[in-house]
């Protein structure tokens, strides 16, 4: 398997930040009250992670081991601020939606984790791809979790889309369950934990089933890897 394919697979499935590495849970749990919120934060994270990995990787050989973490944090904080200011200046409506989430990315440990465990050891192109794919993996989890909570909690999907694409997008809001009075638990923080638990369980179940299937087909004795490893 080529290195690029492996990086992609790692980000989206094998090492998915949201349901396998379980990193960056603070924003994951806090903002996923709707699909739009979740995906918006996810895409902002993709941008930051690709940029952070792309910045650290070329200078990795000049950063002494003892101070690597302060340097990484410095770079990530600077990058997030630059992205925050740029979006605010050149895409103001988008900033209204993402504005409160972007500073949250600084405290998202998945960014630091990928810089530390991947970009500090690999070439720039692979690092950028790794940041991008990890971000996409997280975005998928955020979108799914947001969708679950929004559907159960409010009976709609894609509410708030007009904040991103303008008032015309109001028509795209799907009311799946009409005349729904809402199930508050799903929108409140406990709903985030329950939803994430369900997603992790589903992912583990699929993983175990796939492993069993491939073991049957090839009758190889490849040892079953534990689905959860840090």
């Amino acid at each position, binding site marked *: 398997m080529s290195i690029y394919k492996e990086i992609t697979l790692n980000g989206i499935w094998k090492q998915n930040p949201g349901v396998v590495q379980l990193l960056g849970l603070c924003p994951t749990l806090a903002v996923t009250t709707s699909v739009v919120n979740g995906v918006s934060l996810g895409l902002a994270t993709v941008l930051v992670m690709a940029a952070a990995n792309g910045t650290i990787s070329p200078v990795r050989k000049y950063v*002494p081991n003892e101070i690597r973490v302060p340097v990484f944090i410095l770079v990530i904080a600077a990058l997030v601020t630059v992205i925050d*200011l740029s979006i605010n200046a050149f895409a*103001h409506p988008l900033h209204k939606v993402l504005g409160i989430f972007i500073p949250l990315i600084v405290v998202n440990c998945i960014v630091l984790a990928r810089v530390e465990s991947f970009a500090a050891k690999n070439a720039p192109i692979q690092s950028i791809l790794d940041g991008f794919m990890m971000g996409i993996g997280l975005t998928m989890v955020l979108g799914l979790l947001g969708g679950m909570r929004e559907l159960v909690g409010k009976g709609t999907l894609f509410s708030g889309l007009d904040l991103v694409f303008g008032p015309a997008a109001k028509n795209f809001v799907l009311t799946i369950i009409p005349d729904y009075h809402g199930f508050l638990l799903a929108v409140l923080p406990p709903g985030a934990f329950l939803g994430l638990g369900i997603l992790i369980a589903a992912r583990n179940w699929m993983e175990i089933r796939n492993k069993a299937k491939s073991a049957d087909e090839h009758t190889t004795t490849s040892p079953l890897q534990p689905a959860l490893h840090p």
Partner: protein
Amino acid sequence: MSETIIKHAVKTAGTLTAFALVGTAILAYIFIITRAPIEASEADARLALFSQILPHNSYNNNLLKTEVAIPPNPLLGNRAPSKANIAKLGDETVGVILEAIAHDGYAGDIKLLLAIRADGTISGVRVLAHKETPGLGDYIEIERNAWITQFSNESLTKTVAKDWAVIKDGGKFEYMAGATITPRAVVKAVAKALQFFNENKPLLLENKTADKVAQSKDAT
């Protein structure tokens, strides 16, 4: 041996300093080039919000440039100095836009923006920020419910003091079952803001004061 340790320490400190300097320089540069566009778009966003509560054909001055400084005041609930924007048609003051904060919401402060006409009637109220329970207390947002529009054209003379409460408390304002603390706080904050307006009419309506504040702001 100790020499190599010192050398190493200096080199490490130098690297960290270099990264900090480069990072700071980039941030400063980005801050400078984005400041003007950010200020422009924030002003646009504010004006768009103002136009929701004060029809923009009712005044002809630059609202953002005509400000009066307001010191912390218990009636408005602001703990830091804030600003009121004065709307004028020619030389005549037609209305005031005030920010009020209710501290007694269900969860945290509720920030309100009020437009009050010169005669003391409300032109419109909007919620700027709140942390009320989603799905229960958030009907005070105009995006979710028209509840907040019931304050339009209200005043302290039209509605007597004892009626400035939700129906459950013997007042006249609607509320939704399940969340009474939120509307109670909003009604109270609106009434207090009107009281502030009545007590501070000279400051808010006298054109000279307003101009002076605005001019001294421009000059600095």
